[in-house]
């Protein structure tokens, strides 16, 4: 276990954290306005596909990232309309959308590209890799931050901005008031339904960016169902971070670390076993930190769950 090995684990930790963090922030803004959104997986997966598809035909990074964010937001809009406006059952909408996008992307992959399984092509361009000038030459840190994309850095800035917006501005307080007491907020003239719908669409956009990093970051490809439960891991991360943007950074880093360690152990232990690590870690983390979560608010939600 030398320092270069540790540095490479930390490097893959940071890379694995980004999609989870972005989706977890999406989950957090939904819970903050009292919407239980479990279609995160769908919002991510559609973006992974849309960004790679646009990437394939245009070769433009800007257009592919926009396509990812927009497609995620679009799925968010469907969730918003069905769940917030028409008060459809959250579990049914979320599960249906997750499966619909899983089938839909596979369908489109075959229809557009004639492919099954995955799309890899050397025409695809990846997100720009950044190697910071001075830091690059520092032995340990340089390796840890090696070849990160701009979105990897951006995700932390987004978390910080969300924190400032929600907790330090008037409009942020208005948004939080909807989650605390919808009726009271409405009586003060806050358009609660509109805010809730807006937040769900925002969560779609955030997940969309997360899904884009997944398919255009460290690997440049689309694979059927490539999110493989990350949306749910993100839900766990948001829940451990108590839907607070800055705390969510920490919990997301934890899950990123589990994936990083899992990847590193693949040389020693059979990959099928190391792949279970992030999922087991999610359950263990939820159990360990369960006592710190507000029991009353949690129980209400989990009376169902």
């Amino acid at each position, binding site marked *: 276990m030398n320092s270069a090995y540790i540095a490479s684990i930390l490097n893959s930790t940071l890379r694995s954290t980004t999609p989870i963090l972005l989706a977890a922030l999406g989950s957090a803004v939904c819970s903050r306005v009292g919407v239980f959104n479990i279609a995160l997986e769908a919002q991510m997966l559609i973006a992974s596909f849309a960004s790679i598809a646009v990437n394939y035909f245009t070769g433009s990074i800007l257009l592919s990232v926009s396509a990812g964010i927009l497609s995620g937001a679009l799925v968010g809009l469907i969730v918003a309309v069905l769940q917030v406006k028409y008060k459809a059952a959250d579990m049914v*909408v979320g599960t249906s959308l997750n499966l619909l996008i*899983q*089938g839909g992307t596979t369908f489109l992959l075959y229809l557009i590209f004639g492919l099954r399984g995955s799309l890899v092509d050397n025409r695809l361009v990846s997100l720009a890799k950044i190697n910071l000038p001075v830091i690059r030459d520092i032995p340990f840190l340089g390796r840890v931050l090696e070849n990160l994309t701009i979105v990897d850095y951006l995700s932390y800035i987004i978390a910080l901005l969300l924190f400032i917006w929600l907790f330090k501005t008037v409009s942020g307080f208005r948004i939080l008031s909807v989650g605390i007491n919808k009726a009271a907020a409405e009586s003060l003239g806050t358009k609660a339904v509109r805010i809730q719908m807006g937040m769900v669409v925002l969560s779609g956009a955030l997940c969309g960016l997360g899904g884009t990093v997944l398919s255009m970051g460290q690997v440049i490809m689309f694979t059927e169902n490539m999110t493989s439960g990350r949306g749910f891991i993100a839900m766990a991360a948001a829940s451990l971070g108590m839907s607070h943007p800055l705390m969510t950074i920490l919990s997301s880093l934890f899950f990123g670390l589990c994936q990083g360690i899992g990847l590193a152990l693949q040389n020693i232990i059979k990959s*099928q076993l190391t792949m279970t690590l992030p999922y087991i870690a999610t359950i263990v983390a939820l159990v360990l930190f369960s006592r710190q979560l507000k029991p009353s608010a949690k129980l209400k939600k989990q009376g169902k*769950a």
Partner: protein
Amino acid sequence: MKQSHNAGAREFGLRLWRALRQPLIAVLFGLLVGALVILACGQNPAAVYLEMFDKSFFKPYYLFSTLTRATPIIICSMATSMAWRAGYINIGVEGQMVTGTLVATVVALYVPGPPVLIGLLAWIAGMAAGALYALLPAVLTWKFQVSMVITTLMLNYVANNIASYFVTYPLKDTSGDGLSFHTPEIHEVMRLPRLSSSSTFNAGFLLAVAVMLLMVFITRKTVFGYESKMGGFNPSFARYGGTKQVKVMMITMALSGAIASLAGSAEVFGLKYRYSDGMLSSTSYAWTGLMAALIADLDPIGMFFVSIFLSGLQIGGSAIQRSLGIPLEIATIIQCCITLFVSVKLVFKIRKKKASKEEVKEGGVKA
């Protein structure tokens, strides 16, 4: 005598209609969306649907394939509804099925003894394993208030990966070419009998029917069925009525997991005779079962028919993929659109409006 028989038949018909009314309308909506997708692919929806249903329901050979594929789907939908109707969102039926089936297969292959007895033991061991795997999230919810949605889903990935490990390494059948990852075949005596000489249709389907009847019995005739439903319907009322919530939750989840294991065991003992890597996850039996449960609003009889219908969509979907080049995921798309329509309770709303109008009429007459 004849009259009472007629009345019974009418009552059954009425019950069937009530169970199927909501799914039927949602299915029409789903097929409509599917038709739009087919149009977008540049094909004629009517022709595609005709081909799809021809190669899933109308020709006997395909009908048998549909019923064979429906077997695990029906059982999974029953397992799902067992938990959901009590308010426990178990989306881990897949993991419970995989765990139970792997254990059942291992017992069938490696426990020494007379094959008939070992075969029986294998089913029971599988049920026990499935039940235990479902009890794990239940205990975590009870002790730590951890969200069952997340834990049950996470456990799917854990079960799938571990099963994949076992089939790839320790349990792998080394007698063949060594390229496919599966266990050796189970003893001939343990295999479920075939019900048709020309296809793989087997006695597993009868098991699915039995599970459905069991669900009807549990939900309509037993105290436990009432208690668990009350827990899901209104937890505080159930507590007030003296229902022991924790005990009900444990039994509910254990039953859900045990039933889930039957779905996979039926597949191994009735169809494949071995456990092969990904056989239960890549076919998404559990998720189709979940869809069926949602579409039929957790009614056992409704779920039975919806499962057969969804299975037919998938069989027909793979047929049109071969002949017309439309990806078989069209089936998934139609399926999910149906559940989305059900979720908005479009059907329910129409019904309610009618009902309230009738009430007003009746009130008017009385006044």
